[in-house]
């Protein structure tokens, strides 16, 4: 099974310069930060479960901009109602990626419940335009290539392994630096 940071590297390869990326709290933001730090990344350092709703707001306000939300199974479960809301608002420029390792790895790999339930099926039944479950690097890359262009809301559920990266850096930008860099990236796209 692909490790989460390898999945993040594949995702980073499929993100265009002008796209906005929201990453959830914990290791996913840290792994995205060490893989591809850029002004258009918003590292959601806290507020587990909020990345998807913040991304939804951005997608609605920037219809010509693709918004990519990257979160884990735990944060998706924490705000599962947001899946229904994203489907209901249906922004075509919304790409939702769930890196599902069936655990709360950031806090010590305690098990979650996604071994028994399929978040892609839930997104599909909510009404996402596309929702698919992928395993392995090739399937993920293919899903990301298919997901280019604004034909969302699209959800990719990538099954990943529990593979902590040793001595990984925290996000070294301050919260206000993250905010201001991201603000600059949004403004540049609007101009």
């Amino acid at each position, binding site marked *: 099974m692909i490790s989460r940071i390898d999945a993040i590297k594949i995702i980073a390869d499929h993100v265009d310069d002008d796209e906005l990326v929201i990453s959830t709290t914990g290791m996913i933001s840290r792994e995205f930060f060490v893989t591809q730090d850029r002004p258009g990344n918003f590292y959601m*350092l806290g507020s587990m479960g909020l990345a998807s709703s913040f991304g939804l707001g951005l997608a609605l306000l920037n219809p010509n901009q693709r918004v990519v939300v990257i979160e884990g199974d735990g944060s998706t479960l924490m705000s599962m109602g947001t899946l229904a809301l994203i489907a209901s608002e249906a922004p075509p420029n919304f790409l939702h990626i769930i890196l599902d390792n069936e655990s709360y790895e950031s806090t010590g790999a305690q098990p979650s419940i996604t071994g028994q339930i399929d978040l892609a099926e839930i997104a599909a039944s909510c009404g996402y335009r596309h929702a698919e479950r992928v395993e392995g690097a090739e399937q993920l890359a293919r899903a990301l290539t298919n997901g280019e262009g604004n034909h969302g809301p699209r959800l990719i559920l990538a099954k990943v392994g529990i593979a902590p990266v040793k001595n990984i850096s925290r996000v070294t930008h301050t919260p*206000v630096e993250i905010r201001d860099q991201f603000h600059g990236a949004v403004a540049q796209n609007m101009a």
Partner: protein
Amino acid sequence: MTAIEPSAFWEFVKSRGITFVSGVPDSTFKKTYDHMVDDPEIRYVPAVREDVALGIASAAYFQGEVGAVIMQNSGIGNVVNPLTSFSLMYHVPVLLIVGWRGYGGPPNDAPEHWVMGTKSTEILETLELPFEILETEGFEDCIDRLLATMNEKSVPGALLIRPGVVL
């Protein structure tokens, strides 16, 4: 005391550049809520929870605007975490328009509102979140005072609406 008309309330809020709103309804501001939903100049996203509404509305800041969350005060509990680990940490302002159920405590309103009805302002004070209690007289100044403080500190602020102040 004549309640503030929905049109007067929203025309003033819009005049301050607030047109992106998300939230959860409350009976305290029933007509005011309905008016907002029907206003073509307001983009409203009906959220599933108040924390979700806060996440959505906060996106307006990155367009150079201020978003708003409309909610009942029972939802204050649902926004404490995003306020502390998102709004106050990143300094992203958002206007919270809050229906004040259980105002004055028992026997007012229903039992489920008694505790939050008496604790709402204490929670906001603990979080050092600016707030104003909306009055019918001079409501424009009340909103402007709150927006000025929010802008100065770059933090969210709460506009508390007691029953009968708006329709």
